[in-house]
């Protein structure tokens, strides 16, 4: 597509302080999930489940890449990066990120996200749902390391687990 209307830019998010002097920068989680799951519903009807998941993964990856550029690009040390990531996720109410395993040389990581924005508290569905988070983590790790990553959610609230667990492996 050559003539794009929605190419991402932080400017598209607008001046929130100006626009919401009384309601402020936060909204209810219910509204966020309402938007996400209605998107999923309509996309799935138009594109099918697999394509919908792919779109969510890619959107998450774009978000991770853009957030990295905005918040983490000056950090060179991996542990500093993780600490900063944990703080940002908590401050922005995305979730509580924790590291279970990290091997930067091999490009192998196991991360957990508790109280996840997308899924914590959802009913048990029998399948992992955090495809957006998968993409988000992939975007962050790819930006930091310069290598492509495959991120997979292996435990999810929706599969009866209390925390979301992601494996991230560098693609070599």
């Amino acid at each position, binding site marked *: 597509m050559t003539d794009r209307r929605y190419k991402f830019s932080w400017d598209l998010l607008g001046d929130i302080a100006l626009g919401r002097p009384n309601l402020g920068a936060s909204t209810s989680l219910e509204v966020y999930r309402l938007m996400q799951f209605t998107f999923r519903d309509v996309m799935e009807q138009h594109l099918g489940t697999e394509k919908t998941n792919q779109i969510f993964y890619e959107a998450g990856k774009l978000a991770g890449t853009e957030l990295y550029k905005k918040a983490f690009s000056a950090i060179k040390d991996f*542990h500093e990066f993780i*600490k900063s990531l944990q703080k940002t996720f908590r401050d922005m109410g995305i979730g509580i990120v*924790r*590291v*279970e395993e990290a091997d930067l040389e091999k490009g192998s990581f196991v991360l957990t996200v*508790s109280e996840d924005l997308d899924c914590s508290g959802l009913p*048990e569905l029998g399948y992992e749902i955090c495809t957006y988070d998968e993409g988000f983590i992939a975007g962050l790790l790819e930006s930091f390391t310069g290598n492509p990553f495959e991120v997979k959610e292996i435990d999810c609230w929706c599969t*009866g*687990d*209390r925390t979301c667990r992601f494996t991230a492996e560098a693609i070599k």
Partner: protein
Amino acid sequence: MSLAEEFAIVDELSKLVLDMLMLSKPPDVPERFASIDSLQTLHANLLSLRDFLSAAANGDLSPNINFKGYIGGTLKMLQANLRHMTWQTKMVAAGDFTQRIEFMGDFANSFNAMVIQLDLTLKEVMRKDAELKKTNTELLREITIRRQAEAALLESEEAFKTMAITDSLTGLYNRRHFNHRAETEISRALRHKRPLSVIMLDIDFFKRVNDTYGHHSGDLVLQMVANILKESLRSSDIPARYGGEEFIILLPDATAVNAATIAETLRKRIETATVKGEKCTIKITSSFGVNDHLAKASSKSTEKILSEFIDKADQALYLAKKSGRNKVTVYNNTKGDGGSLLV
């Protein structure tokens, strides 16, 4: 099926579940219930639970929990907490004392208190280490200053020693130091029965130089003679300024003949040398008296021997002056009362 038979089946299945929980070796699903899927799932989940708990009890957090739901989810949360704590402990070990554990009650509180205490202790150790290094640096600086002061003092002492034994105008030994060295050499010569000579040198008509060309020119003449002595003598010879325009040279292991030869060489060099005065060139001559006669040590003190030794050279010098100057005269011991002119 009767009620009693149904109770028997429930009892058998309950015992199976209890055995799965209680026995060290878990029982298999009885053959007659093998086709019941829910029982197979329950059996598999209980086996997975046993495996995880056994591994976790031994510190192995790697096994997967292969079932979902409340128990599986809770165990996974515990597993995530413990794995995360392990990773955080590694970070603390690597020096990151900002790590804190959450959501694990007393355990988290104790861990966090330990990390805070570690941090404080390490900071205190580092502070003391820095203090120690600072003190060490100051101490090293103090030592350097003291060493420099000691070196300066030694240098100063050396300078004072040199000043005490040297004639400042000519750089030759002064009379007092010459006497000291001469006494040592006389003792050595007498002890080893080795020859020892002395040359007295006096610049001819030096008063005229001072009167005609001024004292500065006189000083230049004295310096020139001193330089000729320094350049011409052996390292073992001991030249000194004896007073005014008079010089003295002690020559260990030299007979009067050897000394006279050296004196003659010096005489010629002084005669041919010139000093550039303010308005003209100054030429001078000098007279020499030589003596190698030493009195026996047993009868006199070294000081007395030295005095007589020099006196005889002085007598020879007097003869050189009396007989026309610009000459070398050797004290003639055979006559016993004076020197004779060396031809």
